[in-house]
């Protein structure tokens, strides 16, 4: 049994094949990156995997469960969390509350419990706060817990998105360009956070343009170009793949 299997995944928008017949798989505990030039279909791939879009063809199988036709919230309930390329922070909440929403699937207070918060509800609420503070501490934002989320600088908002996704206690975490817009210090922190998550058994699939970081941290890469899978392999293999160099990176070569 593969941990995650993408089979012949195809998505067309009108006449455009955003993702065309892409297949690959990910093992538990791996860090895998999807790379490719702008418009290669990387984010579309993420949206297909998380139920935001329905594929035209193909399937996504997560731990033997076919998640292809599930909606976004059902996919999340199965333990797949994600972050977004363009930030999707809840601007109307505090930093802590953002992460607390992340624990939605791990808690169960319903409307009745919300209206009449008796003992068990309050206990659950305390647990949510404590665990969320742990998640914030992991990304170094514990001291910002009560600030308005939109008052954080960009880099910290990106970290907050990761903390929020991790609060879901996912088995598979999809990171959409986590390093974009981060300075070098923040990128180092990000790498440490990603390693920390891997050590806790979280499998990570990321889309990233920062080649140095990608080559450093990933076990394997999948290269997309115009919706097609161009290559798949270890960083070493990809760096020496003539097709990838020609199609994607031009003359300069990889790992620059």
């Amino acid at each position: 049994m593969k941990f995650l299997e993408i089979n012949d995944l195809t998505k067309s928008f009108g006449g455009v094949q955003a993702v065309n017949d892409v297949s690959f798989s990910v093992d538990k505990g791996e860090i895998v990156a999807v790379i490719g030039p702008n418009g290669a279909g990387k984010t579309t791939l993420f949206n297909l995997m998380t139920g935001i879009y329905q594929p035209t063809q193909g399937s996504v199988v997560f731990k033997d469960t076919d998640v292809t036709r599930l909606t976004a919230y059902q996919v999340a309930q199965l333990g797949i969390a994600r972050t977004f390329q363009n930030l999707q922070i809840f601007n109307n909440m505090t930093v802590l509350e953002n992460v607390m929403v992340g624990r939605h699937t791990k808690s169960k207070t319903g409307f009745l419990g919300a209206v009449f918060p008796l003992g068990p509800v309050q206990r659950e609420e305390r647990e949510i706060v404590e665990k969320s503070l742990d998640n914030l501490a992991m990304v170094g934002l514990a001291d910002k817990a009560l600030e308005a989320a939109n008052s954080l600088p960009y880099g910290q908002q990106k970290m907050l998105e990761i903390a929020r996704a991790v609060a879901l206690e996912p088995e598979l975490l999809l990171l959409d360009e986590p390093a974009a817009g981060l300075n070098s210090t923040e990128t180092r922190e990000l790498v440490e956070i990603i390693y920390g998550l891997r050590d806790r058994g979280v499998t990570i699939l990321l889309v990233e343009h920062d080649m140095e970081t990608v080559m450093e941290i990933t076990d394997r890469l999948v290269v997309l170009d115009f919706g097609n899978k161009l290559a798949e392999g270890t960083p070493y293999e990809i760096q020496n793949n003539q097709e990838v160099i020609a199609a994607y990176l031009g003359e300069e070569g990889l790992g620059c």
Partner: protein
Amino acid sequence: MKDLTRRKRLRHSLIVLFTLFIFSLPFLITNNYYLSVLVIIGIHTTVVVGLCLLMGYAGQISLGHAAFYGLGAYASGILTSTYGISPWLAILAGAVGTGLITYTMGIPIFRLKEHYLALATLGLGLIIHVIFVEEVELTGGPSGLSKGIPYLSIGKLVLNTDFRYYFLVWAIALAAIILANNVVHSRIGRALRSIHGSEFAAKSLGVDTDKFKLQVFALSAIYASVAGSLYAHYITFISPSPFGLMTSIQFVVMAVVGGLSSIWGPILGVTAVTLLTEALKSIIPQLIPQAGGEYEIVIFGLILVITMIFLPEGLTSGLLKLYEGWRYRKERADEIP
């Protein structure tokens, strides 16, 4: 953790203080007209608290709330006057019925978003209003229910004066505020606000956004229904006219003026708009003798536009900012002798 507890304490003490203030008011105000205005403010507050849950927290709009308010009023009116059912049971029946109707009607309606959703709720409101007017045998048609609606009573105490009714209405309005406050600061409240913040992200965190939208829509309609029942037993006569589009708009204006994402917004918004309307009722005829009710809608429009321009987050946060500005200036003044 400590800061959180402190915030919670502050919230609770504010509620306690406000409760004491509200329940001492009728002993200070002996004028019956003022008291009746306060009763109406209490009833409208209950509606607007529900509307704020929907609009301010979940970020969804409803232009049909006057109709749900009417559903409660007619359920109470018809069940008690025509069928002789206990008023308290009738209120409950109205609330449950309105909840069921809005939940089922919400399933198709909440496939829509934003302007389209506003139009669909407006349509639902209009349809319900047409039923009030046309179902003459049941509702008495445009001239209203012919049989009198009984006063509410607790044991042997008949709530037939403004003074007595005031306590019931405000007990329910305060309960509405406290329960809504509980919802807002719960897992459900966070889920609702996450829909407002980014529906996309909410879904990706496992929030069944469609379900929560429906539930909060039904809950806010139930609030409106209970308020409608209270209205029916207060006025003891109902006709379709207070449950039309104009009232729905009025509720939205009250919610927006007060500020959508504070639990105190509704009280402030309802009070400000009601007092202004009452004042205008006596001022406008003096200025323009031939003026009718149509001037009200112009005024509401103006209030809405002015609020959106100068206090886009409503009176509550507007006042808070004024206070913070004042405190800041005061501190500065203290520093420089």
